[in-house]
C-alpha cells in the first residue's frame, strides 16, 4: 500500500467524519447544512485522489476525475435548493439582516407592478383606438 495514497484516504475520511460530527452537534438547520455540504465534498475529493494514486490505471483516474467534477458541480446546487426550500418552513436563527426576505418582498412588488401595467394596457387600449378613429 502506497503511504501517500493511505494518507490521502485517511485525511479524506477524517473530513467526512468531521462533517458528520458537525451535523450531530450543531443546533440549527442552516448550521447543519453548512457542516454537511462542504466537509464531505472535500473529503470525497481527497479520498478520490488517494484511490487514484493507489489504483493508478487510466480508467480509474478518469472515472474518479468525473466523480469529483460532478460532485463539485452538483453538491452546491443541491444544498442551495434545499436551504432555499426550507427557508420559512423551519425556525432559523438569524445573526444579521434577512436578505432573502428582502429579495422575496422586492420580487412580489415587481410582480404586482407588472400586473398593474398589464391591466392598465388592457384598459388603455380601447379608448386610445377610439381617439384614433375620431
Amino acid at each position: 500500500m502506497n503511504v501517500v495514497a493511505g494518507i490521502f484516504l485517511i485525511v479524506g475520511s477524517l473530513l467526512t467524519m468531521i462533517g458528520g460530527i458537525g451535523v450531530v452537534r450543531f443546533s440549527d438547520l442552516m448550521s447543519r447544512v453548512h457542516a454537511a455540504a462542504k466537509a464531505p465534498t472535500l473529503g470525497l475529493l481527497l479520498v478520490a485522489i488517494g484511490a487514484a494514486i493507489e489504483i493508478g490505471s487510466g480508467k480509474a483516474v478518469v472515472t474518479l476525475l468525473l466523480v469529483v467534477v460532478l460532485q463539485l458541480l452538483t453538491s452546491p446546487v443541491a444544498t442551495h435548493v434545499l436551504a432555499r426550500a426550507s427557508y420559512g418552513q423551519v425556525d432559523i436563527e438569524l445573526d444579521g439582516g434577512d436578505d432573502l426576505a428582502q429579495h422575496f418582498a422586492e420580487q412580489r412588488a415587481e410582480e404586482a407592478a407588472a400586473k398593474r401595467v398589464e391591466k392598465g394596457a388592457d384598459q388603455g387600449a380601447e379608448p386610445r383606438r377610439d381617439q384614433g378613429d375620431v
Partner: protein
Amino acid sequence: MIVTAIVLLAVAGGCFLYRVLRGPSIPDRVVALDGVLSVVVSGIIVAAAKANSDITLATVLVVSLVGFVGTVALGRFVERRGG
C-alpha cells in the same frame, strides 16, 4: 491504513444516521441523508482502493448522481409541503 479510513467513515455514517433518525424537521433528515450518501460514495472508493481494482468505480458515478437528483426532488417536496 485502509482500516483507519474505514473506521473513520463508519463513525461518520453513524453520526449522519443519528441525525436522520433524530432530526426534528424533514430538511434536517434530507441533509443527513445527503451526508450518508457521501459516506457511501467514499466507502466504495476506499473499497476499490483496498481491492486495487477499478471495476466498482462506475457505481460511484451512479450513486452520486442519484443522490443529487434525490436531494433536489426532496427540496421541491419540502418547498411545497413544508418542514
